[in-house]
């Protein structure tokens, strides 16, 4: 199921006696088309990657060079000073730690509470299962903008959770898409496996911990990756909740720098891009290392509903 689909014409063993002519022509066609697709993809890759390259180059420039020549590395114009400058203004380390706590809290809650509900929806028969599943599907339709004001009133004003990690984490605590991914993976495990364990007298909790979870490790990595994108990149909610810079995730402190402080810096673009590199690097690195867990079949199954 999770196998990459490949144009199989050339690999399927076709008996040579049967009509060799159409086979040859379609292989030819495919060969003829590939360069077009390839060039298209290469242009796309350039458009997608160039801004990242430019972000890095720009973060190292002493003087912002916006000419075409500035897009190429110039060893006379390289400096690390922009990183020092942005660090003096917004404390990169503090920002990274806050982003890490915010993201880590959400991932921990999602794994801790999401796996049991995903397992229950896939493998347990209990009253209300249909209702819980309907809730899971419905939740993904609720737009966050409608919740913006009431959540702000409740969390910041009523519960007094402004400038706290709890206030940041709460609205995102259990990622519903991740719950859906868990359910899909648990659904693929044969029910007979669990029946057998039950007959052997294993408790449901033990079945979950010792049989089901070890079998869905890839799902856990996929769900963690999906969950990671949300809080690490989230701007609006932590921006509303944190006014104290000691609690601001890096996305918020960098955004505040862009909108307020930038005008006063000697090389604002250099400093902004240096901060942008620090904010982007963990997410980009994570998704390159774990790219196998983020393939279309996983995403497709989670989004199809």
């Amino acid at each position, binding site marked *: 199921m999770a196998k990459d689909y490949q144009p199989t014409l050339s690999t399927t063993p076709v008996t040579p006696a049967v009509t060799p002519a159409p086979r040859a022509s379609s292989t030819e066609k495919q060969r003829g088309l590939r360069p077009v697709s390839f060039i298209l993809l290469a242009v796309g890759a350039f458009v997608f990657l160039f801004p990242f390259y430019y972000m890095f180059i720009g973060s190292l420039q002493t003087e912002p060079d916006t000419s075409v020549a500035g897009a190429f590395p110039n060893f006379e114009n390289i400096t690390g000073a922009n990183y020092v400058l942005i660090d003096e203004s917004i404390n990169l380390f503090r920002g990274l730690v806050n982003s890490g706590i915010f993201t880590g809290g959400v991932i921990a809650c999602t794994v801790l509470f999401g796996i049991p509900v995903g397992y229950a929806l896939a493998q347990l028969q209990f009253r209300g299962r249909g209702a819980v599943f309907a809730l899971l599907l419905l939740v993904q339709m609720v737009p966050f903008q409608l919740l913006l004001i009431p959540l702000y009133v409740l969390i910041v004003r009523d519960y007094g959770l402004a400038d706290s990690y709890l206030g940041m984490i709460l609205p995102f605590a*259990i990622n519903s898409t991740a719950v859906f991914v868990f359910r899909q993976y648990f659904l693929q495990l044969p029910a007979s496996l669990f029946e057998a364990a039950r007959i052997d007298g294993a408790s449901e909790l033990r079945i979950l911990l010792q049989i089901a979870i070890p079998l869905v490790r890839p799902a856990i990595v996929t769900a963690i990756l999906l969950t990671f994108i949300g809080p690490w990149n989230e701007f609006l909610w932590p921006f509303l909740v944190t006014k104290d810079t000691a609690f601001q995730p890096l996305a918020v402190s960098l955004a505040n720098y*862009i909108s307020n402080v930038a005008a006063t810096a000697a090389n604002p673009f250099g400093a902004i891009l240096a901060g942008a590199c620090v904010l982007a690097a963990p997410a980009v690195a994570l998704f390159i290392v774990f790219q196998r867990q983020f393939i279309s079949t996983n995403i497709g199954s989670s989004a199809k509903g």
Partner: protein
Amino acid sequence: MTTSTTVGKPRDPGTSPAPAPRRRKNLLGRQPLGIVFSAPYVIFILAVLAFPLGYAVYISFHDFFFTAPGVAVERPFVGFDNYAAVLTDPDVGRSFANIGVFLIINVPLTVGLSLILANALNRVTRFRTFFRVSYYVPYVTASVAVVGVWLFLFAQNGLVNSILGPLGPDPSWLVNSGLAMPTIALYVTWKQLGFFILLYLAALQNIPEELYESASVDGAGKVRQFWSITVPSVRPASFLVTLLATITGANLFTEPYLLTGGGGPDGASTSPVFLMYQEGILQGNPDTAAALGVILVLGVLLLAFLQRRFIGGKDD
């Protein structure tokens, strides 16, 4: 599997002397522990989603203002006053028009480009991983970070204008009232495209190869095959892509806040969510902001309904 059923079946009649406890168990299902496993999630959804949702509607119908925690004040019911205030506000009309411009540019561009690139990606085997990863890198990166580069690229004397030379627009992209919103739409298309390519790729991989083979035997060219096989086959995915792109557009906040310095120039790139932030939180009118939120969501639902009508999701 066979052992469990053969063991389970003969046990059923054997345990007939004790039907009462069995029925009590059935009330909660065969594995009532599922209720315990689901409870934290259900409580979470009720607390941070269902209740605030109802609360948003409540706020929008009352004269609501911020108070210190624990202070009891009267918040009288005002009917549709907040809605009337929102609907007569020219800024609100402007922000919805801006979102309209955004969607007209963003949605067709997203559907077209992601389908074309996913189709190409599905055919090429070389460097496939490299292409796939480079496409979703913008999607997984914080908008705040990439906004920094776009500011740099599209500045008055930025790289884009350097390349265009005299063809560069004046005033420049982000400070030009006619171009600010299209530039934001372009930015969001670029940022989200990778995710939609993955969605389409999953749909494309479900199309049986035989369809293409028989079409090619019948003499259909690649372009014809794309229009007659690929496009109709991925219709459910297209519906999902337009729906998600519309929701993203309606949620626009970070881009007008940072890219065009707070919805500038002169309100040409404000978004409804940006106005909700300005009205509700900066100016302390959560009631009108909540009403704006309700109207926005109703608008999204209407668009989703129309898209379902015209693109359709279930007829595969």
